[in-house]
């Protein structure tokens, strides 16, 4: 286990440009942030559907990086053909082929970390390494994952951010105590929350019940045979540290790194994720 120094780190690596592309897949057209040259890295976002610009720009200097938006997020289509995590894994396999990514390092945050693990336990040879940042996917008695459905974005923002200067934190706080009230009063236009509502519906398909976990995942984690780093934001108010700890304990040889940050590691500490990816490449 390694303790990562606290505070933002200024990268001295030259940032390479990444661009948004539309990639046709078996379920529909999906939006992918792509760039760089080198060994392949696939980044999977959380249930928030956050953009990973800083991380991708950083990685693009050493890797061929792709950060797809899952169907239902940011205009990616095809969610009507995806019912559960099983379908999500097949979508990833299809997408990797279309992106010509052979045995990439797969890394993801929260929902994306869970998806990475589900891919790796089913098709261990399809990945060359895993970085799981505050991953969902397990049920641990006494350490339940917080509620993401039916609550105000302002409340959730306080659980997923430790850095209150993040633009997404401010946006979520700004929506107020109730999306419904804000919409009814006309305080925010419907189009402003449409992407959020679509994303929530997509997450519900994968994670309503069982809630953000797969009861069979834990006993399958021994199938992971590639270098793995598990990142745990010690100020994560949504997914308790017991979750990343359990992933690290179940995956042979996995390294657990504790980071002084919240749930949204890809926004608060993209440098830590990039370092973890470089460490197993």
């Amino acid at each position, binding site marked *: 286990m390694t303790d990562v120094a606290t505070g933002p780190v200024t990268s001295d690596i030259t940032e390479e440009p990444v661009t948004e592309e539309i990639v046709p897949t078996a379920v529909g057209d999906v939006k992918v942030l792509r760039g760089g040259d080198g060994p392949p890295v696939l980044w999977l976002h959380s249930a928030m559907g956050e953009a990973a610009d800083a991380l991708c720009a950083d990685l693009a200097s050493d890797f061929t990086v792709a950060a797809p938006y899952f169907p239902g997020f940011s205009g990616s289509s095809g969610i009507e053909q995806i019912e559960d995590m099983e379908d999500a894994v097949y979508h990833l396999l299809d997408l990797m082929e279309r992106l010509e990514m052979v045995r990439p390092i797969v890394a993801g945050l929260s929902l994306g970390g869970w998806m990475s693990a589900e891919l790796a336990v089913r098709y261990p040879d399809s990945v060359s390494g895993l970085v799981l940042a505050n991953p969902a996917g397990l049920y641990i008695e006494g350490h339940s994952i917080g509620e993401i*459905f*039916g609550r105000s974005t302002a409340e959730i923002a306080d659980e997923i951010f430790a850095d209150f200067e993040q633009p997404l934190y401010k946006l979520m706080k700004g929506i107020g105590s109730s999306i*419904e009230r804000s*919409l*009814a*009063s006309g305080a925010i236009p*419907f189009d402003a929350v*449409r992407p959020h*509502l*679509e994303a*929530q*519906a997509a*997450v*519900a*398909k994968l994670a*309503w*019940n069982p*809630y953000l976990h797969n009861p069979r995942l834990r006993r399958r984690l021994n199938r992971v045979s590639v270098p793995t780093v598990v990142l745990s934001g010690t100020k994560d108010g949504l997914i308790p540290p017991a979750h990343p700890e359990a992933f690290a304990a179940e995956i042979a040889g996995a390294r657990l790194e504790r980071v002084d940050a919240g749930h949204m590691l890809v926004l608060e500490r993209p440098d830590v994720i990039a370092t973890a990816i470089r460490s197993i490449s």
Partner: protein
Amino acid sequence: MRFFSFHLMPYPELPEDYDGPAWITIPNKLFDPAVGTKIYNRYIDELILAEDLGFDGVCVNEHHQNAYGIMPSPNLIASILARQTSRVRIAVVGNALPLYDPPTRVAEEFAMIDNISGGRLIAGLVVGGGPEYYSFSINPAHARERFAEAHDIVLKAWTEPGPFEYIGKHYKLRYVNSWPRPVQQPHPEIWIPGAGSVETVEFVAKRRYAYMGIPYFHISVFERMFKMFREACQKEGYEADPLQMGWLVPIFVAETDAEARAQYEEHFWYFVKRLLPGITISPPGYTSLRSYENMMKGMGSFMASLENWEQVVEGQYAIVGSPETVTQKLTENLERLGAGNLLGLFQLGTLPADLTRRNLEMFAAEVMPKLRAQFPDVAVSG
């Protein structure tokens, strides 16, 4: 015109200092079984009284884990009513199909009630409210698909010879063979409640079921809904029968307008301010975004946003007054809406037993006969 007495069975004794939602997370330590024993029996008596007073039917409905209506199983109440009444139609509005797994359970229980009552059941089929998808952990992204499949299963169970196999996306049933079968053939009258979504209106119009306007909106919202329904029926090639439409509204009658308001208002506000909060929660995927957007646009005319009595009167959220006032307002609105079923809520919020009984009696004696004379074209059932 058919007259129904609708009972929500609200929990009337929430502590003064509780100001949270009435749904999903309302602590159940607030439920006092001593109160429960008293009010279940009182509310059943109030439903039975409607038959004695000449109503055409009674209505019950299903909600879970809430204080708004403590009737998680309306079929239990309906089966009591099947034995304790002999003439009224018993409308269960309805069973939330996606919450029954397998949904053949609904075909069976409804058929039991239809048999016990000698063919008096009206079968309401509903998607279930948004809060129920939290209370049951049923995936809201599947709500509409499950409803559509469950509807087909129930209807087939009643109308097609069993056993047969039903293999759908959500339900895979190798032997569907409902015992008993319903008394009413080919099946009991079917009511579907809706809040104006195009999909539901078209679903009901196509199958010639009856459309019940979901309550607690400004009268103009009902007007739009029923207009949309009539147009949907025309598209299907027929004119909507008034009996295919139902208007659900709180009603309170007293000697004078002033007395009615004075006796009623506090109980009405308990309902609006204590029991409605939380009812509109819409879990992800529960409706199409188009329907959700329309719903949000309509939220300004939802009862929960009311602040004063003038708004209640202006929007006809409740019909309250002397027999003359209530008769006049109901006549105007029924003409305006074209609905042939009046579903009155004669008990609301904390309205006590004595006022509820007098309300029902005065309505039956002084309002109902005039409305029956006013709308004679619609046959009275029973």
